[in-house]
């Protein structure tokens, strides 16, 4: 009996009217955990019932505690007929199982119904008493911390990074079971929500077990996804990076914690002057693996087992814990991947040599930013895709195929990385796109060489930074240096000596999936670069379809890559960070979208321009045309240089006005390569003509390409945008943030569209979305849209859906050229002032609605900043919490709800995260049969997204938190049938619940943060 779960139902408010006759409701509550159910008394005739129940106690295994959610159902009592359900609340109690996370869940939760949405709120208290259980054969993994954040969380340090963990769990989708024909949509939705909640609980527990086996205590960069495979089932899979984390003592946290906003690189470009330009020549770091040829899967003839909703028979996919499990398990497949790894790994870890990493089955890391010194060299992006046919029937006795699929892809990634001379893959992620029975599995990451010492115990001691480097390369350009052998390069590339240290070779262009390392030197500012592509395909079934898709994929990858490269050149930049390429499959088309943040890395050579070449040189008309286009391109490049403030000293020295005077270019190639090897220069010359940057306008296609290249409008004045956590070149963030989610669906009525037509439509769709964002957020300038995360889907034959989640962050314009280096000192100075301010605020009238005077981070802020902040979101979360607690006594007090900030980033500018309260991982279904009445699909989705936000905020507030970091919307699957007036939508969101405080007042707030929960409960 390792745990006791206690729940208390306090009160409800704003309940819906369930009895039309009296306009009131007779509400009571059922509290269910596992198979145990308790009920409260009926609170008659009230829309704001006070139950004030006893503590309901559940005595349960910690395994169940991890898997099961606490299920709270609010019902309307009816004497004569069946009780009507008002709605439900699922509470994930995982955060309570970890001593360092939340200690109590207490607060108002929205009561959610899958048909009606939010219907009032309920106040609940939940506690867990865990008994220590040191049974090494246990199945639970309580205490392992999970973080969605893809970097080492603030206020922690990584004692050791163990490596890749993965797991997947499969089940039948309740929506596709026979019983679904006879039950209500509500029952079906709830079965699905509950099942997914169970499955993700189970998945998390199993991952936790693997982490414990590896000797770690946390998973960082936890990425969980659902694959709705339709009739063939439901897959929940997760990957992450196992680490051993240690909490800083509060004193040292501020010094050692690398904070993106406070630890910018020295922006000054002080590389040597005798810069040689090495341009031309396409590097193909994106070695897209040829998609695995279609493989027919043996279809089993046995029928699926009957489904029992109470205890779903999820089958685990890997056999990693077979040797440890006491209970005999059936259906243990042989296809497990991690099982092979777990045992040997432990012993390997003790040896700790460089080869450790290589011998690991998958030396992958889901992290995108790293402690200084962790990343030694970066090779380039590696990706692999494979097209699979989903088998119709699951046989529980059959070895799991999904795991084998992923294993295959990971092997491919690993071999790509090896080809780049790298022993590890960082910024690793996996995703799928499913259409009917075809599934594209994709994985991508950045090949890299890591400092092996980080895999060793106790090596991450922050004090010993200097001893860590075996490699003499300077810290802020080392990662750019090529990891592969320059005489034996995996792909044709142009190398040059590093523009910073002049000692090592660097490539001319670098593509990565990770965030820009904090120490990297950047010239000018970065910007969002997107490549968009549509490819029509014939409608087909089964194998034919899969083959067709397989054949199209390499072309799409190539074109996306070319687009990225051209757009990068057009902006005079030489590196991409946070690259994410998504290929989505629909019945009659494939969509490709690549987003990244382009920057000019000071260490890399200046990019060449783009050269336009006509097909028929003799034609005078044509030549004029070419010249005109060339001029436009050159103008665009010149304009972009100015816009992004890219003016590396080398360029001015050599007086390169026009981007590419071709003859000179050639000669330079010779010159530079004479230093390295003749062989190379010859190779480059031969390559020169097919260069991606010489665009030949020989047909309409190419003209289109050039046009699309030039149509990307730069963001309006005052705006920046990027796909990474922060914008390279901007360091002085103020605390105003606005997170948003936007979804747009386009219906293509035109049946006979060409590829070009589609491309145009798709490009316009993305561009218009961006324009819309800029317009909506125009009052917040100067600001930067960070972490612009586009997701494309083809929900139906003629529909294209784009969903975006991003955050707008304000920054201080006056100082955006350089970071304030004396920040730390000013901070210290203003601290006392803030402490003085504290009691004054307390005594002030709590109902005052005026924005808090923004005392943020001690940067000398002018009044303009503070007013701007107030127009966004309340900058300082803490005073709100305070005023809330004061307000609670007043029945109509303004602001009785905690403000919860949300951001897709791992940090909140101007604040410091003092505590991680646990992972938020929620899955919701919403359905309607009155679509028109709810304002059409837009109205339906608008309220659903708002409801999802509300539920996330409520859960965070109940944990005592005031913010969600690393928030993401993994899935937004919308199905509509306007003719039947119906629609259904599934949304999956995740993030880390945290308590953050303003950077200046850490001490007092620790207490306030912790009392948050109890205050909530009292209201």
């Amino acid at each position, binding site marked *: 009996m390792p745990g006791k779960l206690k729940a208390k139902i306090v009160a409800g408010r704003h309940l819906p009217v369930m009895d039309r006759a009296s306009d009131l409701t007779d509400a009571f509550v059922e509290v269910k955990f596992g198979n145990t159910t308790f009920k409260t008394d009926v609170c008659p005739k009230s829309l704001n019932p006070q139950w004030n129940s006893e503590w309901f106690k559940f005595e349960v295994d910690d395994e169940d505690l991890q898997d099961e959610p606490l299920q709270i159902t609010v019902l309307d009592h009816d004497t004569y007929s069946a009780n009507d359900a008002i709605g439900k609340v699922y509470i994930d109690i995982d955060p309570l199982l970890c001593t360092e996370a939340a200690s109590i869940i207490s607060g108002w939760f929205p009561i959610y119904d899958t048909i009606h949405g939010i219907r009032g709120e309920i106040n609940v208290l939940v506690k867990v008493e865990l008994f220590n259980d040191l049974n090494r054969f246990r199945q639970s993994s309580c205490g392992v911390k999970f973080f969605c954040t893809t970097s080492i969380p603030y206020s922690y340090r990584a004692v050791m990074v163990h490596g890749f963990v993965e797991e997947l769990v499969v089940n039948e989708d309740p929506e596709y079971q026979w019983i679904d024909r006879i039950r209500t949509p509500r029952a079906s939705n709830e079965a699905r929500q509950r099942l997914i909640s169970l499955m993700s609980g189970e998945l998390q527990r199993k991952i936790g077990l693997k982490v414990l086996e590896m000797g770690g205590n946390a998973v960082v960069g936890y990425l969980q996804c659902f694959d709705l495979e339709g009739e063939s089932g439901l897959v929940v899979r997760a990957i992450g990076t196992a680490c051993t984390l240690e909490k800083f003592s509060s004193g040292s946290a501020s010094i050692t914690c690398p904070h993106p906003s406070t630890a910018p690189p020295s922006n000054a470009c002080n590389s040597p002057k005798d810069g040689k330009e090495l341009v031309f020549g396409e590097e193909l770091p994106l070695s897209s693996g040829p998609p695995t040829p279609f493989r027919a899967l043996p279809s089993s003839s046995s029928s699926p087992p009957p489904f029992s909703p109470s205890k779903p028979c999820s089958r685990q996919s890997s056999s990693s814990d077979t040797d440890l499990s006491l209970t005999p398990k059936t259906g243990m497949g042989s296809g497990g991947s991690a099982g092979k790894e777990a045992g040997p790994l432990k012993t390997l870890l003790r040896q700790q040599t460089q080869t450790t990493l290589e011998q690991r089955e998958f030396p992958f890391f889901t992290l995108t930013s790293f402690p200084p010194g962790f990343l030694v060299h970066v090779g380039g992006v590696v990706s692999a895709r494979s097209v699979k046919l989903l088998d119709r029937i699951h046989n529980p006795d059959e070895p799991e195929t999904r795991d084998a699929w992923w294993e295959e892809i990971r092997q491919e990634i690993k071999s790509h990385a090896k080809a780049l001379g790298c022993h590890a893959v960082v910024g690793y992620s996996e995703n799928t796109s499913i259409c009917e029975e075809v599934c594209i599995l994709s994985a991508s990451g950045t090949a890299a060489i890591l400092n092996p010492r980080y895999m060793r115990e106790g090596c991450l001691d922050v004090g010993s930074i200097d001893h860590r480097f075996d490699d003499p390369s300077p810290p802020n350009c080392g990662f750019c240096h090529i990891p592969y052998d320059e005489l034996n390069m995996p792909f044709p590339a142009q190398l040059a000596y590093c523009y910073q240290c002049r000692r090592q070779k660097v490539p001319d262009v670098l593509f990565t999936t990770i965030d820009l390392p904090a120490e990297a030197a950047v010239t000018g500012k970065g910007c969002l670069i997107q490549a968009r592509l549509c490819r029509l395909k014939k409608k087909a079934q089964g194998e034919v379809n899969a083959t067709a898709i397989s054949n199209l994929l390499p072309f799409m990858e190539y074109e996306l890559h070319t687009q990225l490269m051209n757009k990068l050149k057009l902006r005079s930049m030489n590196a991409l960070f946070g690259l994410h390429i998504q290929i989505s499959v629909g019945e009659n088309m494939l969509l490709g979208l690549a987003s990244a943040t382009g920057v000019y890395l000071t260490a890399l050579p200046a990019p060449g321009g783009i050269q336009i070449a006509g097909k028929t040189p003799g034609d005078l008309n044509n030549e004029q045309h070419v010249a005109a286009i060339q001029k436009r391109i050159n103008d665009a490049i010149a304009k972009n240089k100015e816009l992004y403030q890219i003016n590396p000293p080398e360029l001015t020295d050599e007086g390169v006005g026009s981007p590419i005077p071709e003859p000179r270019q050639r000669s330079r190639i010779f010159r530079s390569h004479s230093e390295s090897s003749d062989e190379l220069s010859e190779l480059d010359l031969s390559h020169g003509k097919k260069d991606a940057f010489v665009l030949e306008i020989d047909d309409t296609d190419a003209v289109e390409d050039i046009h699309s290249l030039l149509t990307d409008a730069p963001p309006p004045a005052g705006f920046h945008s990027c796909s990474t956590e922060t914008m390279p070149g901007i360091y002085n963030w103020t605390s105003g943030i606005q997170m948003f989610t936007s979804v747009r669906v386009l219906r293509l009525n035109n049946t006979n569209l060409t590829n070009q037509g589609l491309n145009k439509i798709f490009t316009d769709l993305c561009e218009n979305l961006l324009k819309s964002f800029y317009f909506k957020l125009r009052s917040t300038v100067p600001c930067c849209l960070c972490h612009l995360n586009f997701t494309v889907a083809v929900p139906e034959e003629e529909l294209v859906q784009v969903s975006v989640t991003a955050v707008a962050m304000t920054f201080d314009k006056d100082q955006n050229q350089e970071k304030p280096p004396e920040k730390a000192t000013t901070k210290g100075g203003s601290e006392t002032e803030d402490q003085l301010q504290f009691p004054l605020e307390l005594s002030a009238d709590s109902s005052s609605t005026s924005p808090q005077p923004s005392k943020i981070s001690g940067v000398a802020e002018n009044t303009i900043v503070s007013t701007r902040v107030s127009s966004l979101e309340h900058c300082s979360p803490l005073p709100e919490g305070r005023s809330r607690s004061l307000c609670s006594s007043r029945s109509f007090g303004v602001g009785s709800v905690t403000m919860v900030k949300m951001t897709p980033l791992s940090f909140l500018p101007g604040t410091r995260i003092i505590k991680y309260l646990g992972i938020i991982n929620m899955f919701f279904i919403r359905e309607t049969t009155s679509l028109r009445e709810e304002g059409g699909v837009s109205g339906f989705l*608008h309220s659903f997204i708002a409801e999802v936000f509300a539920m996330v905020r409520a859960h965070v507030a109940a944990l005592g938190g005031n913010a969600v970091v690393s928030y993401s919307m993994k899935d937004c699957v919308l199905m509509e049938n306007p003719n039947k007036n119906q629609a259904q939508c599934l949304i999956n969101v995740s993030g880390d619940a945290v308590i953050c405080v303003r950077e200046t007042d850490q001490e007092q707030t620790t207490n306030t943060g912790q009392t948050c929960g109890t205050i909530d409960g009292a209201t």
Partner: protein
Amino acid sequence: MAVELDVFVGNTTIMDEEVYQLWLDGYTVNDAVRARMEGGVLDEFDATADVLLSDTMDQYRTFQMCERLLHSPAKLANQLLFQIPPHRQTMLIERYYAFDDVFVREVLGKKLSKGTKKDLDDISAKTGVTLKSCRRQFDNFKRIFKVVEELKGPLVENIRQHFLLSDKLARDYAAIVFFANNRFETGKKKLQYITFQDFAFCAGQLINNWTVGAVGEGLWLLPLANMDVDLDKEFLQELKELKVLITDKDLLDQHKSLVCTALRGKTKAFNEMEANFKNLSRGLVNIATKLTNTKDVRDFFIDLVEKFIEPCRSDRWTAADVKLYLTHYTNSAHILDTFKHQVVWDRYMGVIKSCIFKMYHD
């Protein structure tokens, strides 16, 4: 190719005050887009009409979803669906409950019933306020009326607490509720020149002086529901006693001579005042004595205009004249030895005086 779906949802709900006002004013989405384009939002920010349409639709949807909450503003503060900073909440509520003076002038004193609601088309046509906006304003009146009807305690405070309105707006609503409850006639042609703000001031005077709640703390314990909404019956009864001022010939003459003595030489209109004294005094006292009849309560303002303001105006009294006259008229009654109803007289004349001051203009 058509946009099938287009939504934008912020964690903190984004609301543009300009669009909110257009929505409140009952503009359709297309009209609002046109209005915004004319307002020059596109010039200051380089955007296309599509962007504007998309933004306007999003905002309209948000407002529609919020509207339910705005009906009981206290809910807005502790609901969870929209994260709106407190100062924005205040703005939303204040604007939602704001009304057009031209509109309220039309329905002031009318019964807030379905019948009146049907007339909103005509009112809309007459005032130029869109029907949608008329409906919102009318429903606001009705909603507040319904809620405070059943509450004890001071009217203005109740409105402010329940609807989280500013003091000024709460006072205006108190006036509207008070007028609707007592059904004061305000629509007659003769009353057209009186603005809503004049009436609101008068309502404030009546609420503060002539209702049960006005008398003082001692009456708090009385089980009276609408202390501020209904006039003090006892007081109205006592007003009958004032009749003696006009029925008793001696008293009337005595009163007149006292007033005239005081006024002589102080105003150009003295002759007219002297000549009209008995008429005016009869007018004011008769109004007082008839207030026990509900019908006459309704005609209170008409009577004031017909019996006092119009005669004065035809004699070209200035506002200062009126003030002077009424001050002396009121004070002189205290010197009358046989007149015993000083307290009632003051309570009556205090309100009459300030109402007439407010109403005496063109």
